[in-house]
């Protein structure tokens, strides 16, 4: 069975819903219609652009080009991880932490999936490598940014408690153990909740897409299960790397708490 392909009139019919939203915004003075228009335009342009780029990448099937696309996606995700927390390290430290976490977790999980479970030939076939990396990056981004926000916000807030332990001669690891555990827990909860809700509260996007594209629902479910394992594993891994790398930057060779390396983002 082949997927039912969409035509321009099909999309335009659906777009009438957006027009309706805009009319609603004007009628009810929600003042959202301009933002709605910009968001809609961005969405359409961004997705079509990605479609064209992927079509090109798939047609070329050049490993170097695939790697370049994956690297650009990873860099954007790392930047997002770095930008979200209210606190940041001086001299681009957040970007280093975000980059280390996102790159290591995504690379490890994607390569594991491509060489063991999915096994396309060759394993770096862009049809599989690019979308898989993309969906893993989304989850890794969440895990890493929650962990980073937790540890940086927590360390600033709990400064007196941590320094009290250090002053009594506790090592830095012990003085920050509760904080690190708490950040990890918060970072892992979304992935766990996502698994609990899968299939009951929401039909996951990948599974929906594959069913619409004509795949047997049970086969689609198996794919989704594999993905859930990968996503949960990847976001936990990213959170751990974040906590370890950020923790190391918060101290020095004499086990001090180096809050002088942190800056608070100006709230607007």
């Amino acid at each position: 069975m082949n997927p039912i392909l969409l035509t321009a009139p099909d999309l335009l019919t659906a777009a009438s819903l957006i027009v309706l939203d805009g009319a609603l915004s004007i009628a009810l003075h929600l003042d959202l219609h301009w933002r709605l228009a910009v968001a809609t335009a961005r969405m359409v342009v961004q997705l079509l652009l990605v479609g064209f780029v992927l079509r090109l990448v798939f047609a070329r099937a050049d490993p170097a080009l695939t790697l370049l696309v994956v690297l650009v996606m990873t860099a954007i995700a790392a930047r997002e991880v770095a930008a979200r927390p209210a606190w940041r390290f001086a001299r681009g430290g957040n970007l280093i932490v975000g980059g280390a976490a996102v790159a290591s977790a995504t690379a490890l999980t994607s390569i594991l999936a491509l060489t063991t479970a999915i096994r396309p030939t060759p394993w770096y076939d862009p049809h599989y490598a690019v979308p898989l990396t993309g969906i893993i990056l989304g989850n890794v981004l969440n895990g890493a940014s929650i962990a980073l926000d937790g540890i940086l916000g927590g360390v600033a807030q709990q400064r007196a408690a941590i320094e009290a332990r250090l002053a009594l001669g506790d090592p830095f690891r012990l003085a920050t153990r509760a904080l690190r555990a708490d950040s990890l827990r918060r970072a892992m909860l979304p992935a766990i909740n996502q698994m609990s809700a899968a299939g009951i509260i929401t039909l996951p996007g990948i599974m929906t897409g594959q069913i619409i594209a004509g795949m047997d629902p049970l086969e689609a479910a198996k794919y989704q299960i594999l993905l859930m394992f990968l996503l949960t594993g990847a976001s936990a891994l990213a959170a751990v790397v974040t906590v370890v790398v950020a923790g190391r930057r918060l101290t020095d060779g004499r086990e001090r708490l180096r809050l002088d390396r942190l800056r608070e983002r100006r709230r607007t």
Partner: protein
Amino acid sequence: MTGLRIHGLRSALAGPFELEVNAGECAAVTGPSGSGKSLFLRMIADLDPNEGEVALGDVARGSVPAPDWRRRAVYVAAEPGWWDPRVEAHFRRQDAEAAVALAETLGLTEAHLSGEVSRLSTGERQRLALVRALVRGPEALLLDEPTGALDRASVVRAAAFLAQRKRDGLIVVLVTHDEDLAAQLGDVRRRMQDRRFAV
């Protein structure tokens, strides 16, 4: 040779400082707020980046791991931090008995030790922080305004308590606004001005 020796202690913010305190003696540092008194204590405890030589007896600071050093020279902040809602969680189990004995000499009861930190007054917290530091058995105590939140009777009791600890051989570096306390306990006196000792 026992005692605390500080030579060329400086950071980007304060110093350089020279100071020697013998075992059983107290160095009292007074001076206006913001003159660098807390910075000075934090540098001795190696809590802020700094340079210079600090030694306790024949143990040089740089020759031991930082946590090891901080167990020998314990810094007690003016507003001590607490990492658990329960007071007792701040004491190791083997120190519990010693903690009760010390707390009682400072006018606290066992109830203070088994309660919650949030229910304690600032003065009670300050005294418990002193107990918490002493049960770890330091050679030197670095006290930042230890009587700042205490009433007169408690200050007298704390002073007598510290004098007793000095007789037991404890080294004290005391930073305070209280000139009377500094005169009473200080064997060595220094005045802090603009982040260095006034001559």
